[in-house]
């Protein structure tokens, strides 16, 4: 058998194999995507009430949409057009989704609760793939680190102190993890900037 025949045969074999394995993944994905989205919605709803424990059922049931039409550029939040955000009508507290694209592995998805006076009510991590034991301490169940955002606002701490202590900022670092806290701090800051720019539109949305 000449070398060309063998290369061709192997290439075709491997190609078929790739199609088969990719097909299995594609099939599983289409079969599970709906359920996964449902699971994530449930989990997100749970987090909404961790941030605003006194809010009523409408908070999760009547989400608002972040559309480019109303808000222009959504780059500060890093989310896609049409992503949901949430309002507690009785207190005018808002929960914004925010994505930190620059974590250690994939994007870190956050929820940032902001009260009408621009103070953070709470931040929670919806999903992430940071290293277990190091960067995963952004999860509340593993460490209280994320609670230090409670009560901060766009001006407190000052603009140039939105960094970890090691970088000369006001936020606690994590031993062993540098990139993850930096990414989360920056994403929360950007969410507050977005809130400041669009507060009227965010709160003006019709239920």
């Amino acid at each position, binding site marked *: 058998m000449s070398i060309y025949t063998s290369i061709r045969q192997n290439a075709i074999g491997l190609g078929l194999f790739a199609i088969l394995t990719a097909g299995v993944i594609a099939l599983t994905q289409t*079969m599970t995507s709906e*359920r996964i989205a449902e699971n994530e919605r449930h989990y997100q709803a749970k987090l909404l009430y961790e941030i605003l424990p006194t809010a009523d059922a409408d908070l999760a049931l009547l989400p608002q949409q972040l559309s480019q039409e109303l808000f222009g550029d959504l780059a500060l939040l890093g989310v896609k057009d049409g992503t949901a955000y949430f309002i507690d009508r009785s207190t005018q507290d808002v929960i914004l989704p925010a994505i930190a694209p620059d974590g250690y592995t994939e994007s870190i998805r956050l929820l940032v609760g902001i009260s009408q006076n621009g103070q953070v009510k709470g931040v929670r991590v919806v999903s992430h793939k940071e290293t*277990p034991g190091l960067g995963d301490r952004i999860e509340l169940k593993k460490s209280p680190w994320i609670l230090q955002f409670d009560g901060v606002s766009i001006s407190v701490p000052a603009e140039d102190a939105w960094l970890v202590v090691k970088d000369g900022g006001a936020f606690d670092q994590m031993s062993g993890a540098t990139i993850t806290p930096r990414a989360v701090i920056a994403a929360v800051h950007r969410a507050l900037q977005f809130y400041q720019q669009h507060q009227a539109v965010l709160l003006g949305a019709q239920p």
Partner: protein
Amino acid sequence: MSIESHSPAPAVQNPTQDIIKDGLWRNNPALVQLLGLCPLLAVSGTVVNALGLGIATLLVLIGSNVAVSLIRNHVQDTVRLPAFVMIIASFTTTAELIMQAYAFELYQILGIFIPLIVTNCIILGRAEGFARKNTVWRSLVDGTMMGIGFMGILLLLGIIREVIGQGTLFAGMELMFGPAAVNWKWVIIPDYSQFLFAVLPPGAFVALGLLIAGKNVIDDRQKQRVQKAVDDQPALSRRVRVTGHIH
């Protein structure tokens, strides 16, 4: 491939008992083959994380070993490595998706370990070194035993590092076993300020080195015992050999 050179005996003829001994002790993936060190060192800071990675690795190792063994007669030798990589990658991805859809709680506990497993060379090492030349049943046993051997060392490291690093044992077990496990936490040294060296990967490196040294000491002792037993045999059998030399 260097992975193969670590397996001392030709794997093909091992009876089941040998496979078990290999996985747990003689050819332990963490202590002898030194595979998968990157996740091992990164995630053995506490017992609960070690257990999480251990379980996830065990499951993927069993699955990939069985899958590779199933196709072992249908893949050309020259292209087997890319084929194995595709199997392992698709198996892990599918497992992750299914877990996310049907066991979301479990996914939230073990999901963060999955990206670490894909890069774990134990998986490819066992595919290449064992599963591709053995039956499905033997590959299953091998995957299970190698997985348990790896998990054992992970847990040992987790125990050592958690005690020295944080002064506690079994902290955070409720993440895996539910609220009932909150009071499993055992404060061994009260008011202990963290010993950062043990918490961070360098501490894991040193601890693993000591474990390997410990295993070698035990193996050496046993070898000496066997040697001594041979030496102490009655003189008769020796004389036979000696006369053999004179001729």
